[in-house]
């Protein structure tokens, strides 16, 4: 029956991994948030936030995150307020008219399009997905996202589908890691992308920006991760002691039973 447990758990992995549409296996990066003791790197999250607001935010929303949450990334409340103030939100004023006001800490990240239809209309009839949960909504999330952002390139010379040579149409791009290889999103991070990075940190290369924005989106998808792992270690220690104590009691109570 030990076998049955092991197999049961193996099943769970398999159910997730069984289907991979035609795409390369994502690169395996090391992340500060990996593992039992994993933490987010605040400096990296702040760089990632910059990449998101400068590049991604023109098409992708982040609506599950509120501006107030940016304090968790290490911004001061006034810095977070400044990020919010770059956007406007609608508000019903006392006279019943809809007025614009600057976004504030209490607001969700303002999405680039007023609704899904507008987003689709502006993007070849396919709305760019909201990025709040993208890292959790993809298999092997962070590695996949990083690979995707750095996986653009020219299609192979002998690229074929069903035996016939295949070509890209306008508005299509080749990406090694995207299922089916054809992606509508143009390369978001290139050598020309200019994101203002702190002087005492790493240079904003494509790889670095991809890595930072991935880390930021990993935080956006699971902001409670640090709390969870910290609590988890305490719970495991408590349970180990609990099990130890009850093992001794169990053996004592049972010692005269034959």
């Amino acid at each position, binding site marked *: 029956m030990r076998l049955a447990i092991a197999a049961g758990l193996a099943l769970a992995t398999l159910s997730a991994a069984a289907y991979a549409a035609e795409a390369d296996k994502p690169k395996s990066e090391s992340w500060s948030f990996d593992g039992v003791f994993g933490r987010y790197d605040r400096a990296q999250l702040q760089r990632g936030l910059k990449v998101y607001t400068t590049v991604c935010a023109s098409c992708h929303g982040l609506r599950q995150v509120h501006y107030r949450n940016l304090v968790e990334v290490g911004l001061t409340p006034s810095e977070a307020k400044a990020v919010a103030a770059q956007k406007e939100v609608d508000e019903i004023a006392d006279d019943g008219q809809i007025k614009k006001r600057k976004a504030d800490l209490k607001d969700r990240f303002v999405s680039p399009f007023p609704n899904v239809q507008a987003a689709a209309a502006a993007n070849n009839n396919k709305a760019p997905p909201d990025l709040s949960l993208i890292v959790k909504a993809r298999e092997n999330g962070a590695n996949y996202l990083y690979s995707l952002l750095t996986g653009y390139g020219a299609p192979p010379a002998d690229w074929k589908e069903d035996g016939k040579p295949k070509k890209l149409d306008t508005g299509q791009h080749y990406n090694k890691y995207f299922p089916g290889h054809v992606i509508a999103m143009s390369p978001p991070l290139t050598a020309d992308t200019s994101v203002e990075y702190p002087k005492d940190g790493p240079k904003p290369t494509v790889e670095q920006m991809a890595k930072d924005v991935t880390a930021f989106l990993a935080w956006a998808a699971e902001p409670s991760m640090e709390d969870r792992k910290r609590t988890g270690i305490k719970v495991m220690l408590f349970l180990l002691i609990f099990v130890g104590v009850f*093992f001794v009691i169990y053996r004592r109570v049972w010692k005269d039973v034959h």
Partner: protein
Amino acid sequence: MAMQPAPQPRWMRWVDSRLPIFGSMAHFNAYPTPKNLNYWWTFGSFAAITLVVMLVTGIVLAMHYTPHVDHAFDSIERIMRDVNHGWLLRYVHANGAAMFFLVVYIHIFRGLYYGSYKAPRELVWWFGIIILLCMMATAFMGYVLPWGQMSYWAAKVITNLFSAIPLVGEGITTWLWGGFAVDNPTLNRFFSLHYLLPFVIVGLVVMHIWSFHAVGNGNPLGIDVKSPKDTLPFHPYYTVKDVFCIGIFLLVFAAFVFFAPNFMGHPDNYIPADSLVTPAHIVPEWYFLPFYAILRATPDILFINAKLAGVIAMFGSILLLFLLPWLDNSKVRSANYRPAYRVAFWLFVIDCIVLGFCGAAAPEGIWLDISRIATAWYFFHFLILVPIIARTERPKPLPFSISEPVVKTAARA
């Protein structure tokens, strides 16, 4: 070995003389339990504790959840981000469902190995199967509540199964949906039933426990208790053993909750439901995979089309278990004394695992062939193999009593 009951305070005696509540609790304390129960017998208490955990976390989650197609997904994210320890509640609840099935499946396999379904415990077995069916319904409806892509499409696929029923199928499906598609009325009723069914399960668990407390526990030797020497009072012997084992179980449970909370989930369920985008592959949670494999493996059978046949086979695979006490009429309970049945049992375990893998794979090519063979074996096992073995096998000699083999081992040492 019976514990001397402590003298009761006056208020307890006052209550007991009117409603013997504390007297009944004393029954549980002193309940004579076979002294040879092994660790597989602790999985029942794991299931009980998990049920309590699910009820407590579920009731609190329901305080924060919004059962509406426009708000369900966001309300879950609000729980994850803004509710105090909401992430803990939700991850405990989501992983708790998987842990519940894990321990219940092991509990059932233990019953199959040690013949726990045989006289006089047929009712224990039956209540157990009804609990399993209720768990499946509850888990399925709970999975729909976050209203992610897998939630929505699972609801669609499973409710569509009922349309396979001849004549009334379409009507039943519309009735289940509360409309002409899976939509807000469907989500609302699933929430209502998801809240109701666990309390039905609590009632069934009471019946399940009551029905073996009347006839006594089974045990690994499969022989009846002959004398008080064969038993121990439940408390403190089995209470400490169960608490120790529950600690180990909670270590495994906590490892998932805190360090791999999404390991058993599907990433697609973090995408909000979209009726216009079908996921590349719709797969249920791992604990439904063997049944999903049976559903998809079944071909057209005579005049019955594949869809209806699949539905019949899937539900049949569980309903069949009700007949097990008569399919297997061997007087010997424990597989330890049934060499042929023991082999059949392990083959059946392997078969269920294979079915699980089949359920995860796309139903085409070699996987379809394997799932058909494995499905056939599932029914062959219960309908042909087990009855034949029961009627032809020569069991090994049984020990005289529970104390006897222990005494022998002690003498040899």
